[in-house]
C-alpha cells in the first residue's frame, strides 16, 4: 500500500504527466503513418528517457506504445491502412463503415472501445500479472501449434463470400510464410540468394500492399466508374466518441478485452491474432453474423477493445518474467534495463514503487490516448476531405516511404507492390486479403512449433493430444470449424 502511495506521487507531477501526454501524441502520429511501427516510435524516444527518473521515462514510452496502437486504428478506419497487424481486423468493419459516410461513427466507436480495452488490461496487469505469467509459461511448442491451428480456423470465419476461395487465400499466406531460412533446419527456401528474403517475407510490406495499395488500385478503377467512394463534405457525419453505442455491446467488449489481454500475455503468439480471435468470437456470439464485414459496429468494438487490451497483456510477461513478446515490448524492456532496472520477479520485491508507478503510468497513458483522440477526431476525419485524386497519390507516397523506412530496403517496396497487385485481384475475385495475413502470421508459428514439438517428442505426434492445453485448443478448433460451417450454411440457404 505504501508502495502504491509513493508510486502515485511519482506519476502525478505535472512534468511527468506532460511527458506521458507528449509520448502518446507522438505515438499516435507515428502509428497513423503506414510503416512506422510502435517499436520505431519507442526507439526514437528511448535516448530521451536516459536522463529521466524511471517512472517518468517508462511513462513516456508506454504513452508512445498506446498512442501508436490507437494511431494504427485511425488509418485503418479512414484509409484501409492497418498500421500494425493487430489493426487488420479493424479494417474489416471500420473501413466499410467509413466508406458509407460514417467515418465519425466508426472512429467514435474505435476510440471508446480502445479506451475500455486498454483500461481493462491495465486493471488485469496491476492485479493478476504473476498468475497470468505462470499460465503463459505452460505454453510449449505443442501448445503454440494448437493455438495457431485455433487461429487458422478463423480463416473460415473471415472468408464470408466463398469458403473455398477464403481457404485458398489463407493457404497462399501460409505458403508465402515458408519463404526464408527454415526455422529448425536452417535450409533456404524460395530465397534465390536474396539477402532480404533470408529471414522471410517481411510482414509490413505484405500488410500495406494487401490492404492499402490494393485499395488505392481499386479506387483508381472506381474513380472512373462512379464507384461508391465519393466522400462529400455534406455527407460526413458528426465525429465524436460514441459512448452509448459502444457500451451497448458490453458482452463483446468484455469477451474481447479478456481475449486480448490473455493472448497478449502469451509471448510470441503473434499478439496480432488476439484481435482476430475476438472478432471471430464476436461474430459467433452475434445474432446477426452476416452483417460482419459490411461495417458492423460489433466488429469494430471486438477488434479495437482487444487490440488495446493486447498492450497491457504484453506487458505482463515482460515485467514479471523479463520476456518481451514482440518488438515494441522488447524496446520497452531495453528502456527499462538502460534505466538500471532488470525486469523479472525481483522487480516486484526490490522496486515496488517503480513497478506500481509503471502500472499507474499505463492507466494515465490510456486516459491521454482517449483525450487526445477525443479532441483529434474532428481533425482525423478532415483527411477524407482531401480531393480523391490527391488522397490516392498521397496514400501511395506514404506507403512507399513507410515500407522503405522499415529496413531502408528498396526490396520491401517492390514486395509491397507485388502484394498490392495480388491483393487487388484477390479482392476482385472474392478470395479476400484478410485470410492471407492470417496465414502469414500463423504460418511460421504453426510450422516452427510443430517441428519443435516433434523434435522434443522424438517424432511422436501424441504430444498434441496428451497435453491438456493443446488438446483443448484442438477440440475447440474442431468445434468452431463445424459451427462456422453450419453458420455459413444457415446464412446462405435462405438466399439461394
Amino acid at each position: 500500500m505504501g508502495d502504491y502511495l509513493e508510486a502515485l506521487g511519482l506519476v502525478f507531477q505535472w512534468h511527468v504527466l506532460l511527458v506521458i501526454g507528449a509520448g502518446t501524441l507522438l505515438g499516435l502520429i507515428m502509428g497513423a503513418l503506414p510503416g512506422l511501427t510502435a517499436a520505431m516510435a519507442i526507439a526514437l524516444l528511448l535516448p530521451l528517457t536516459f536522463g529521466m527518473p524511471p517512472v517518468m521515462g517508462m511513462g513516456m514510452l508506454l504513452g508512445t506504445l498506446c498512442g501508436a496502437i490507437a494511431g494504427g486504428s485511425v488509418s485503418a478506419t479512414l484509409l484501409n491502412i492497418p498500421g500494425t497487424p493487430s489493426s487488420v481486423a479493424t479494417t474489416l468493419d471500420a473501413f466499410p463503415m467509413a466508406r458509407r459516410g460514417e467515418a465519425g461513427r466508426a472512429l467514435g466507436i474505435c476510440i471508446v472501445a480502445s479506451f475500455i480495452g486498454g483500461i481493462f488490461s491495465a486493471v488485469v496487469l496491476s492485479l493478476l500479472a504473476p498468475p497470468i505469467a505462470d499460465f503463459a509459461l505452460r505454453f510449449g511448442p505443442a501448445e503454440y501449434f494448437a493455438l495457431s491451428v485455433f487461429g487458422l480456423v478463423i480463416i473460415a470465419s473471415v472468408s464470408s463470400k466463398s469458403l473455398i476461395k477464403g481457404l485458398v487465400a489463407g493457404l497462399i499466406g501460409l505458403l508465402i510464410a515458408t519463404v526464408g531460412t527454415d526455422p529448425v533446419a536452417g535450409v533456404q527456401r524460395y530465397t534465390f540468394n536474396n539477402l532480404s528474403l533470408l529471414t522471410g517475407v517481411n510482414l509490413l510490406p505484405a500488410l500495406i500492399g494487401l490492404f492499402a495499395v490494393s485499395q488505392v488500385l481499386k479506387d483508381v478503377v472506381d474513380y472512373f466508374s462512379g464507384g461508391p467512394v465519393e466522400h462529400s463534405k455534406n455527407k460526413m457525419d458528426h465525429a465524436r466518441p460514441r459512448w452509448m453505442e459502444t457500451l451497448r455491446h458490453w458482452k463483446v467488449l468484455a469477451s474481447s478485452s479478456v481475449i486480448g489481454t490473455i493472448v497478449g500475455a502469451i509471448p510470441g503468439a503473434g499478439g496480432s491474432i488476439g484481435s482476430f480471435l475476438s472478432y471471430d468470437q464476436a461474430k459467433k456470439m452475434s445474432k446477426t453474423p452476416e452483417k460482419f464485414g459490411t461495417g458492423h459496429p460489433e466488429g469494430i468494438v471486438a477488434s479495437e477493445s482487444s487490440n488495446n487490451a493486447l498492450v497491457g497483456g504484453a506487458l505482463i510477461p515482460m515485467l514479471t518474467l523479463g520476456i518481451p513478446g514482440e518488438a515494441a515490448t522488447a524496446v520497452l524492456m531495453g528502456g527499462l534495463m538502460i534505466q538500471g532496472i532488470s525486469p523479472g520477479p525481483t522487480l516486484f520485491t526490490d522496486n515496488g514503487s517503480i513497478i506500481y508507478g509503471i502500472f499507474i503510468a499505463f492507466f494515465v497513458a490510456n486516459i491521454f490516448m482517449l483525450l487526445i483522440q477525443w479532441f483529434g477526431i474532428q481533425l482525423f476525419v478532415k483527411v477524407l476531405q482531401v480531393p480523391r485524386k490527391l488522397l490516392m497519390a498521397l496514400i501511395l507516397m506514404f506507403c512507399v516511404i513507410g515500407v522503405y523506412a522499415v529496413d531502408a530496403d528498396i526490396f520491401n517496396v517492390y514486395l509491397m507492390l507485388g502484394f498490392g497487385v495480388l491483393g487487388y485481384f484477390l479482392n476482385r475475385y472474392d478470395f479476400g486479403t484478410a485470410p492471407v495475413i492470417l496465414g502469414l502470421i500463423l504460418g511460421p508459428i504453426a510450422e516452427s512449433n510443430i517441428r519443435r514439438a516433434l523434435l522434443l517428442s522424438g517424432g511422436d505426434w501424441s504430444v498434441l493430444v496428451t497435453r491438456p492445453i493443446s488438446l483443448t485448443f484442438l477440440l475447440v478448433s474442431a468445434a468452431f470449424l463445424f459451427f462456422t460451417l453450419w453458420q455459413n450454411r444457415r446464412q446462405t440457404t435462405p438466399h439461394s
Partner: protein
Amino acid sequence: MVKTRSDALFHLVLLALAGWFLQQAWHLPANAAGGSLSPAFFPRAISSAIVLLLLISMVRGLIAGTLLTRDATNEEATAPAWVPVVAWGAVALLLVFYAMLLEPLGYVISTALFLFLCVAIVSVLSRQRGESIAIGRVLMLALFAATVSVAIFLIFSVGFEIVLPTIGVMGV
C-alpha cells in the same frame, strides 16, 4: 473492367504459381532430423492443397456458371471502358518507377515527380471531352508536389530520425 473470362484466368494464374512453388519444393531436402518434419514438408503440403482447392473451386464455378461469365458493364460508368484499365496500369507502373528512382534520385525529387505524375495522369484521363488543361492548375499541382515532398522529407528525417535516400546536394 475488361470483358474477359477473368475469374477463370485468375484461377489459372494462381494455379500456375502454386504449381511453380510445388515444383521448387521438390528440390528442398526431404530428410528430417530427430523424427520431426522435413523442411520440404510444409511447402509441399501447402502448395498441393492450394492446387487441389483451386481445382475444386474451378469445377464448382463451372457448375454454377459463375466462372466463365463476363463481367457486367457498369451502367453508371462515366468514361469509356478502357480508361480505368489504362489508369490502373499507369498508376501501377508509376509505382514501379517510383521504387526504381527512389534511391538514385533521392527521396525529394522522386516523390515530387511521383505525386505530380500520379495526380496528372488521373486528371488527364478523367478530363471531359474538349476541356483544356489550364496552365495555372498544372503549376499549382507542381507546387503542391514539391511542397509535400520537402515537408514530408523534413518531418521524417529531422522529426523521426529516419534516414531517407538523398543525392547529397543541399541536404536533399
